[in-house]
């Protein structure tokens, strides 16, 4: 199967600053791919390179095998929705949506029919004659979406389109975007710094950090098996416990944590040094009042217990000094009677932990 959209060896330099450093990614047709990362990580720069609004220093961009690098942006036939509302202020909603079709010199009847269809798709029938200034932020972004899709582009780019909206509105429009994706089947590249949004919308997520992609995968893959420390920290909550690597073989390491030896921990990265940190998800840690004899366990002192509805966060401090947060479901047997200052034993399945070097 020919990959649909390929980013090959993309690099963007601004003088001595490298915004995008050798990004490689293959996107499948009809996929909802999110570029996730903090600001300055290169995700928007990559998106703008695909749009043609920015010229990369090196690398190639291909759609269905053909390079689009030399195609000027207005001929790339790619749809884009920006973070700032970019509706044409002097045109009505209908004229805005009709614009790409007008520019392509389509017949008036065809234009009218498509515009009506698109406004229906984004559920804004009846708004055709309003001006952008009369619309709310959410409505404006929906018009922008209609305008970007009306010429049925193979790829739709979205650059943090919901960042300017309040939370409730954001969730509403996220739902709309998902629905439209399913109804149209268009390939979507979505940029955001909000991991929850990424997890909600995407088929796959590419996590950007400092100009490179740390990992690409589905939400569950990134959550359960983060490939780098950055991904582990960025997606979901994680605990990091100081440890040393005493031995390693075939991707599995034996680590020493606070005097306890734990073998069989998945190891990522090949940096040197033995002093590093062990990563654990808070809900993968078991908490016992008495020391278990069948698994390796760490002693810890309870610092705080926070009730959060469906789960309880127990903050502890280990003898090594590092804090560990444990997340237990509400009603868990070990919580009742737990109090601050009490000593408990924390244990975990080594396969659920990670060590990054």
């Amino acid at each position: 199967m020919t990959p649909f959209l390929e980013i090959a060896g993309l690099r963007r330099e601004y003088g001595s600053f490298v915004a995008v450093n050798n990004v490689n990614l293959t996107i499948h047709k009809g996929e909802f791919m999110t570029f996730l990362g903090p600001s300055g990580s290169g995700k928007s720069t990559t998106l703008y390179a695909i749009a043609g609004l920015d010229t990369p220093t090196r690398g190639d961009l291909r759609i269905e095998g053909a390079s689009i690098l030399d195609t000027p942006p207005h001929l790339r036939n790619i749809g884009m929705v920006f973070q700032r509302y970019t509706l044409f202020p002097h045109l009505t909603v209908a004229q805005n949506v009709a614009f790409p079709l007008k520019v392509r010199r389509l017949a008036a009847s065809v234009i009218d029919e498509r515009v009506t269809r698109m406004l229906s798709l984004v559920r804004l029938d009846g708004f055709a004659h309003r001006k952008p200034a009369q619309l709310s932020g959410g409505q404006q972004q929906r018009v922008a979406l209609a305008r970007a899709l009306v010429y049925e582009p193979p790829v739709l780019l979205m650059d943090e389109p919901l960042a300017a909206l309040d939370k409730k509105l954001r969730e509403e429009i996220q739902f709309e975007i998902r629905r439209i994706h399913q109804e149209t089947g268009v390939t979507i590249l979505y940029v955001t710094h909000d991991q929850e949004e990424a997890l909600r919308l995407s088929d796959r997520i590419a996590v950007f950090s400092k100009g490179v992609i740390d990992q690409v995968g589905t939400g569950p893959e990134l959550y359960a098996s983060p490939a780098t420390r950055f991904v582990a920290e960025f997606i979901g909550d994680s605990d990091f416990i100081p440890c040393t690597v005493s031995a390693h073989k075939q991707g599995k390491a034996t680590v020493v944590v606070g005097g306890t030896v734990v073998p069989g921990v998945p190891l990522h990265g090949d940096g040197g040094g033995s002093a590093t940190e062990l990563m654990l998800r808070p809900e993968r840690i078991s908490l016992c009042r008495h020391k278990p004899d069948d698994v390796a366990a760490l002693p810890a002192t309870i610092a705080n217990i926070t009730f959060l509805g469906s789960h309880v966060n127990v903050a502890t401090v280990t003898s090594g000094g590092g804090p560990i947060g444990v997340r237990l479901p509400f009603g868990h047997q070990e919580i009742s009677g737990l109090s601050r200052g009490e000593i408990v034993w924390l244990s975990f399945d080594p396969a659920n932990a990670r060590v990054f070097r």
Partner: protein
Amino acid sequence: MRSADMGLVARPARAVRTLRLSPFTLTIPASALLIIFFTIPVLVLLLRSVLEPEPGLGNYAALLGSTTYLRIFSNTFIVSAVVTLVTLAIGFPVAWTLALLPPFAGQLVFGIILLSMWTNLLVRTYAWMVLLQRTGIINKTLMGLGLISEPLPLVNNLTGVTIGMTYIMLPFVILPLYGVVRKIDGSILQAAALCGATRFQALRLVFLPLVQPGLVAGGLMVFVMSLGYFITPALLGGTANMMLAELITQFVQSLVNWGMGGAAALVLLTVTLALYALQLRLFGTAGLGGR
């Protein structure tokens, strides 16, 4: 409606010649116009001051050595200074009041200021020529009120010029000052009152310092404009009381002495540029000029 139904992935780059002009190229028509019809002619004029009638600084020696010319320079300077001070003194209270007036009254006053500013300069100067003449209404009123027994010479002298220039320059002071006063946060002055300051103290210690940048900027602008002003001084001052701009014109038009004309122009330009450099140093982006 699947995107697979749509035809091509990217529109073919047919015979579409996208106009790729760099932003710099776009500035060339304007630059060319200004360089050919502004910079070069002015530089040539200034050059002539040291080349005609013979190379050297003879023109400058003549300018700065003669009492007649020096008097013209000092007249220009004094009139400009007086106009600046008077417009600032009158303009500041007006700007202050404008910031406080209710909408209708404020718009009315604003409209009057704009009308005055937009009305043709000649019309306004002519009005003062008529008002200030010996049989004009001002003298008649003063005599009628018994304040004077003989009509005052208010025109064809520097008094008339000063009055006329003040009239012209007032809007140029009031409007920027109004902008400055409007931006001041009223709560600062309320805080001063709460701290126990009297109105005089608040004015002296808080309000005036806050307005001072506007006063200096406005004052500099009016001063520079007055130095180079031609029309109003020429019409209201009479030939015996020339100011610098009229001197330049005389050299060039009546006497066809380009050397001296250029020299006088250079003197004016130098002072103007020096004052603008001062303003830039003080405030960053400079204000606008006039005629």
